[in-house]
Every structure is written in C-alpha cells, then in structure tokens.
C-alpha cells in the first residue's frame, strides 16, 4: 500500500509538470500565439475578437501566479478552453470525439505485438540457435530500423494504392453512420488493418528480443533443470515454469508501451488520416490552434500516467519482491 501511495505521488508530480509546461510554453516562447493566430486568420478576425481570444487563453494582465492558479483549476475541472480551428466547439468535446479511434488503433496494435512478440521470444529462446532464433531477430531489427511512418507510407502505397486491397484513409467509409452493426464494424476493421499492421511490424522485434533474452537467463536456472529431471513435459516446463517467470520485465515494458498507444500512433494516424487524437494534434499545430494542441497534450499525458499507474499496481501483485523494497 505504501508503495502504491508513493507511486501515486510521483505520477501526480509528473502530471503537474506537464500542466506547468503547458502553462509556461505560450507565455515564455518567442512570439505571441494570439498575434500569430491573428495574422493567420487575418480576414476573419477583428481586433476585439483578438482581445476576447487573449482572455480565453488566460493571457491577461493579471499577475502570473493568479493566471497559473486559475489555469490549474481549469484543468482539473476539465475546462480546457475553446478550439480555434473548430470554433466554438470546446476542446474537451473535440478530444472526446476522437480519443476512441486512437484507443482502438493503439490497443489493437499493442495487443497483437505483445502476444505474438512474446510468444516468438519464448519459442526462439527454447530452441536457441534454431531457425527461428537465428533468422528472425536480425530481420526484425532491420524492419524496426525503418521510421514507422515510412513503413506506413510503404504499406499504404503497396496494399492500398497499387493492389487496392485496403482503404486508403479515415476509419470508415464516407456515408456510413457509426452504429453497432455488422457492415459498419467490418468496414472499421478493414480500415484498421494497415495502420495496425505497420505499428505491429515495427514494435514486435523489441518484444521478441526482450522476451528471448530474459527467457534464456531463466532457462539456465536450477529449478528448470529440476523440472526436467522430474520428467515434466517440455511444453509445461516452457510455459508454466520458464515463460511465466520471464514475463515480469515484459509487464514493465507493457506499462511504458501504453504511452505508445495514445501518443505514439501519431505518425501512423497522420499517414492514414486516421481520425484519432494524433491526427488531430497535427491538425491543431497546422491551424495554430494552441488551446486544442495543449488540451490534446494534457489528455495524452494523463492517459499515459493513469495507464502506467495501473500497471504498477498489477506489477506489485505479480512480483511480491517489489513490495519488500
């Protein structure tokens, strides 16, 4: 329990850091974001609207600490301002309509990569020096060397444009209305294949190698020799004895990888114009929509922190040694 509370404190500090960063960036950066927005939208915006914008932004004449306090207060009540590029929709509403797609894409890719990668790692370590162990790791390291947005471009070109097997952009066909029906869900699935596949391709090597290496160390332990001497079936030794114990580092990595789910799919989303928060973040950057940009950053950070905290709690349950520290 003390372990969990201490970690909670740490995550709160991390979140506070990102809020503070968000607060400080527009105030101390060269150039005033409001005038930048103004110069971009010159035809549509009048000076009095600019003042209004400044007020919305919290860039007023109040002392800095007062601005800071109200900013922090607003964040915790979910009040993140109004989007500029989608005026007058509140930022929280824009994010809410998009985070689901990001979660769908990220979670699908992560689950496939973790399950298949760890399984390959177990098998490679079990038959050390075998074909799986000698051929796959270098290949996966090579594939993992490509920028994943580039692999996404390649997949889009090959399977989308040239072969025409999969749709080119967005999460579902234009004209469909989101509903829980077979045509819609299968349409969503076909749009999901390419983006998820490219993320899986780049990340699976890390999972496999990590699992392989811990597994090799585990297999050398005495209790494995003991199990073999007892004459247990190899499959049982492999999964129940070795893999189970080798899985712990992967759990920690899983926590870190959850960050990838929300934030890391960004480039892939951009390539496929997938309507998640990553794509929206780029859109906000291009439209100089600072409130939306900051809102997305905070949302992603919060999601990553919460996910890591949950993994921490699970980890304590799985590995009693952590509690003793």
């Amino acid at each position: 329990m003390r372990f969990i509370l201490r970690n909670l404190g740490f995550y709160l500090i991390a979140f506070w850091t990102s809020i503070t960063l968000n607060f400080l960036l527009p105030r101390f950066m060269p150039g005033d974001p409001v005038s930048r927005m103004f110069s971009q939208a010159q035809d549509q915006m009048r000076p009095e609207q600019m003042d209004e914008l400044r007020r919305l932004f919290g860039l007023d004449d109040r002392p800095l600490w007062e601005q800071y306090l109200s900013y922090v207060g607003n964040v915790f009540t979910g009040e993140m301002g109004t989007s500029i590029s989608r005026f007058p929709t509140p930022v929280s509403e824009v994010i809410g309509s998009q985070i689901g797609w990001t979660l769908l894409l990220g979670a699908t890719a992560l689950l496939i990569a973790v399950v298949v990668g760890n399984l390959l790692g177990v098998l490679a370590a079990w038959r050390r020096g075998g074909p799986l162990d000698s051929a796959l790791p270098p290949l996966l390291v090579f594939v993992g060397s490509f920028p994943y947005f580039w692999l996404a471009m390649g997949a889009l070109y090959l399977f989308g444009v040239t072969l025409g097997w999969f749709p080119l952009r967005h999460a579902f066909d234009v004209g469909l209305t989101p509903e829980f029906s077979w045509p819609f869900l299968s349409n969503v699935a076909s749009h999901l294949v390419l983006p998820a596949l490219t993320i899986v391709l780049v990340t699976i090597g890390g999972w496999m190698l990590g699992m392989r290496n811990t597994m090799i160390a585990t297999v050398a332990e005495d209790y494995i020799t003991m199990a073999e001497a007892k004459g247990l079936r190899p499959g049982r030794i492999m999964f129940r004895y070795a893999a189970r114990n080798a899985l712990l580092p992967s759990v920690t990595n899983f926590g870190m990888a959850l960050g990838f789910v929300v934030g890391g799919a960004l480039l892939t989303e951009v390539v496929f114009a997938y309507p998640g928060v990553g794509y929206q973040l780029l859109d906000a950057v291009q439209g100089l929509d600072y409130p939306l940009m900051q809102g997305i950053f905070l949302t992603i950070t919060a999601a990553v922190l919460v996910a890591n905290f949950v993994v921490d709690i699970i980890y304590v349950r799985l590995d009693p040694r952590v509690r003793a520290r």
Partner: protein
Amino acid sequence: MPVIDSGAEPGAGSTASGTPPAPGRPARGAPGAAPTAGPAARRARPGLLRALLSSRKALFGGVVLVLFAAVALLAPVLSPADPALITGLAAQPPSAEHPLGTTAKGQDVLGLTLWGARSSLLVGFTVGIAATALAIVVGMAAAYFGRVVDDLLSLVVNVFLLLPGLPLLVILAAFLPAGTGTVIAVLVITGWAGSARVLRAQALSIRGKDFVAAAVVTGERPARIMFREILPNMASVVMTTFLGCVIFGIGAQAGLEFLGLGDASVVSWGTNLYWASNDGALMTGSWWAFVPSGLCIALVAFALAMVNYAVDEITNPRLRGGRAGRRAAAVGATPVAPAHTTEREG
C-alpha cells in the same frame, strides 16, 4: 571509424592500484583526456577496438556508417547542382538522366537523397553527443552525490521518461521558431532521460568500488572523481547510450520534419519524405520519391544498431559466453543494470 574512437576513450586511474593524482590539482573538465593509466585501462582500448574490428556485426555497421559519412561530405562533389533546383520533368520514374527519378516538382531525387545525408547525419550525431553529455552529467551527479541530489535528479529523469515523447516533441516544436537549431534542442530535451537512467545505474555500481572510496579519502574533488575515475570505467555503456541517442536523433528528426515541424527549406531525409507525402507521391504512384530517403534512414539506424550489438557482446561476458545477459539491445527494454562492464577489470 571516429564513432568508435570517441566512445572508447580510456582514462586515468581506473584501478585502486593506480597512483591517485595529487589532490587539489585543478580537474580540467575533459573526460578521459589523460594518457596515464592503470593496467586495466591500458588494456581496455586496443582490446575493445580490436574486438570491434574482428566482429562481423561491428565491421558491417562501421563500413555502412563510413560510406554514409563519405556521401554526406562529398555531396557537393557527387551532385554539384543545388538539389532544390528543378532540373527535369515532374514525377519521372528512374532513368539514365535521373537515376532515382524526379519529384512532383521536377527535382532530382538522387541529388536530394545525397544532400539529405548532410542534415540528417549532422542533426543525428549532434543530438547524440549533446543528449549523451547531458545524460552523463545528470546520471553521474545522481550516482555520486546520492541522497537528496539523487532523489531530485531521479525524479526529474523519471518524469521526463514518463511524459509521452512524441506529443511533447510536437508541442515543443510547434511553440519554438522553426529551424535546425530548434529541432536539435527539442530532440535533446526529449531524448536524454533514458540514457541518464542507464548511466546512473552503472555509475552507482562503480561508485561503491574501493578505488572510488580511496579517491574520496585522498581528498580529490568530486568533478575529478566523477569524470576521471568513474567515467573511464563506463566507456562501453557510454558508447551504447551514445549510439542509441544517435538512432533516436535521426529517426525523431525525420518524424518531426515529416510532420512539417522542421525547417521545410532544409534538404534532409525527413523533409524529402515530407515533400513526397505533401505532393501526393503515394497517390500518383511515384514510389521513387519516398523510397530512397526512408531506406537511407533505415540503413544508418541498422548500422548503428549492429555496432551497438557488437559492443554489447564484447563487453558483456554473459552474452558472449553462451548464457545471455538481460541487456541485449532490445528496443525499449528497461534497464535492469546487471553491471556488466565492471567484470571486465577482473
């Protein structure tokens, strides 16, 4: 192979038997500058270099890196014309005149790729050096001073590790004025923390050795102990983190520029991909516009990873001797700090 050289710099007094330099002498900052050495350090350099040269992985990686460095340096000779100039018809497939075809604007893709190596490698290695330096200072200070300093620095490191990197990268780049300097600064800010954690763990295990205690007792200054006594013993870890930082730098620069957050007027592999995507090379089927730059990034990253592997295998007896250590160059593996280099001295 300048890369390998810079990482494997030997230093002074790495064993307890080495004569400690006179106390109070000013420490002249530069890590590992002294040619004097204990017996272990004298053996370390030719050993690591020779082992690297006889490793097939390291040799392959080194050759590829040297080739790319040559391309970057010789770009003005190999392709004298300004790469951004329009020299042919738009979106032509590879031909005798344009070996890699032309972009949708009519620029020569080969020229863009050759010139792109300059900015990409420069930014990648600059980020690698700066991020490693920052990580060394933070990791060493945390390990050496311990207590409150360690708690504070570790907190900062962990916070930076946890903040989602790419979104942070994007938001920082969006607020700062566009330019190569900004890209480098942003990448260093977001890329140092992981290395600092690894280096701290390693420094911590050396901090407990007798020769460090001896140096403290003789009254050497902290900076001198950190950079001249402890750091030289971490050469291989520093090297590994440096290579990792360069890989990160090259990949992340490409990502930022692909998003249009770099300086779009600079020719680099990232901006080449940005323009290819922007001009619809995917939709018009001009694969030659985006394949070369991506392939180059992957080749450089792969070469660096191979050298990294070789260093790991050479310095980690557990990996070499058939039984694996936990610390292979798995992407994103959390540092478990099995303190592998210290065994080298024995």
